[in-house]
């Protein structure tokens, strides 16, 4: 039954390729690129100021609006700052943990740590964010009760919670990168008289850089688009995602779409910048 079919495909390599990649490529082009294109097109429409229906008057009015009102630039800069801070915090936390897991821990401990890292990913994002709300609450939260101090709801709360949420995404690629680093290289460096600092700079860092870059891409891009955590522990602050969601809420889809282009541009600049360093090739 299957044999003639296999023979048929064997004689037509192109058909085989289409059969293999057709469905995922169609999904990528139609659903993924299609929705992106729809987003970009609708960012050129405008909104009827009374009925709040989207009007198909094509123009750059939404981008002009974003340019002219300083509030949007301020929100974008704040978001950028939060994403950078989250990335920094995650790197500082992830590097030693990943190093310990890859180079120091016994296989048993390593497995336990791996499970401990993956486990929180099974819990709902919302449940974790709301749990942090009870920690951070400035009036009767757990931090206030135990430490007598809490950062409260606001930007610092957002950075803490986002750094917590994305930590596994930072540790896992760095751990994978460190595992690829043979212990013999560290020993060779030591044999040749390299102290810890030199070994780190000349041996570990160049090999680890692509993994670190991968980790920052995750933490940075995930933070850039987040708005739910901001809504839960952000107090009165807003980030790009909140402004987009608020505009979507008043049916101002065109302005929301135009503002959604901003994080896309930021990510493109980020990726192009990384490409320049050559990290993408070594990954």
């Amino acid at each position: 039954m299957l044999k003639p079919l296999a023979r048929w495909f064997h004689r037509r390599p192109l058909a085989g390729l289409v059969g293999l990649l057709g469905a995922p490529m169609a999904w990528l082009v139609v659903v993924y690129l299609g929705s992106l294109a729809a987003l970009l097109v609708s960012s050129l429409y405008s909104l009827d100021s009374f009925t709040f229906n989207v009007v198909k008057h094509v123009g750059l009015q939404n981008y002009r609006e974003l340019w002219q009102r300083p509030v949007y630039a301020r929100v974008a800069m704040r978001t950028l700052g939060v994403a950078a801070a989250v990335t920094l915090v995650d790197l500082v936390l992830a590097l030693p943990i990943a190093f310990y897991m890859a180079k120091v821990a016994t296989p048993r401990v390593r497995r336990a740590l791996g499970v401990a890292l993956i486990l929180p990913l099974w819990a709902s994002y919302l449940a974790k964010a709301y749990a942090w709300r009870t920690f951070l609450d400035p009036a009767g939260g757990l931090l206030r009760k135990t430490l007598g101090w809490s950062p409260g709801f606001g930007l610092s709360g957002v950075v803490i919670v986002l750094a917590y949420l994305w930590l596994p995404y930072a540790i896992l690629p760095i751990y994978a990168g460190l595992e690829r680093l043979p212990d013999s290289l560290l020993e060779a460096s030591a044999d040749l008289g390299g102290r810890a600092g030199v070994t780190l700079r000349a041996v570990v860092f160049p090999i680890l850089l692509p993994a670190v870059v991968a980790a920052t891409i995750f933490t940075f891009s995930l933070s850039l688009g987040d708005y739910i955590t901001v809504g839960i522990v952000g107090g009165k602050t807003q980030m790009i995602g909140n402004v987009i969601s608020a505009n979507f809420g008043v049916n101002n889809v065109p302005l929301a779409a135009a503002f959604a282009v901003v994080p896309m541009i930021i990510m493109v600049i980020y990726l192009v910048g990384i490409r320049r360093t050559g990290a993408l090739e070594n990954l």
Partner: protein
Amino acid sequence: MPVNKQRTIQLMACVVVSAFALNACSSSSKSPDTTVAAVADTAAGTTVAAATGGNEVVAGIKAPDIAAATAVGKGEGELNLIAWAGYTEKAWVDPFTAATGCKVNVKVGNTSDEMVQLIKTGDYDGVSASGDASLRLIAAGDVAPVNTALIPNYADVYPGLKGKPWNTVNAKSYGVPHGRGANVLMYNTDKVTPAPDSWSVVFDKASPYKGAITAYDSPIYIADAAVYLMATQPKLKITNPYALDATQFGAAVDLLKQQKSNIGEYWSDFTKQQAAFKAGSSVVGTSWQIVANLAKAEGTKVEAILPKEGATGWSDTWMIAAKAKHPNCMYLWMDHIISPAANAAATEYFGEAPSNPKACSKTADKTFCDTFHAGDEEYFSKIWYWTTPIAACLDGRTVACTDYSEWTKAWTEVKG
């Protein structure tokens, strides 16, 4: 894994870059459509005529011609509603389902804007719209006129609620009134002493509750600032908080920007506000009576009052979606929700004045209708029902007023 990752990243870059390329193609190919779209838009008919001078309020809204139902048949078995919190509880929904066979699914809307956005999806049969949503829905053709002759209980509704600008356009009724009330000032009775009687506790720069003040996260909250300014800064000559010229609007927005430094959190999800009062991170701010009721039932020490400056408020109307898939069930629902028993149960649960005077004898608390001033038009003249601000000043002045799209942009700026 690292190889996969490289692929993923290259793919991501590829997708983003080609998306930009696509944009370039699509924006040029899109322009021929413009004229067609413009024509279609005029046909939808949403012109707002300017005030013609004098003190006559003209907000000539051209509603698309949609026919009202002429008969109500058997229920279709299902009904999808957009409703304010507390409007569709089991106690009065279950009897409806039992009597009509219409299974009720509810999506709670947190703000009027959300409701307007939701109904545009076309997935819903009806909505409990406040005045700041209803006109937008009518003008956009999202809701259909209602044949009130098909709704027996409509005859009993207070005359003061019928034929109002927010539920009637061009002498066509667009729904049945549900109830009305004021946005109240809620405070924690332990932490806020002496008990406040003015909105100054939330607007005063030197408020002692800095950091624990909450405000409603919606552009319509600008009207709350305007109500406060109306009482405290007569020089601005605000006569209607929804009719603000550039100067008055600027003053209201400035007040809100100043207020922001004292705000702990904005709220739009009422359950989150209830939780914030319970935890104590919010101690004073604008709220709804139902939040106060629920918080009290939970043991949180709160009280809700109507401050001396007056307040914004709402007068809600059940409207039927123009594209309702279950119109019979919606008609049956509109009749049910203003029937004495259901109207009493729903408005008493929420804490607002019912629309049907016969509901007053069905409430659990017999003084309920007096407490909430049902039918007391004198009292309600002090409440500024949510209304959509439009360019033609609602108070009849001939200057330009700020419209709601300005309000939404200003709200983004207030939040910074």
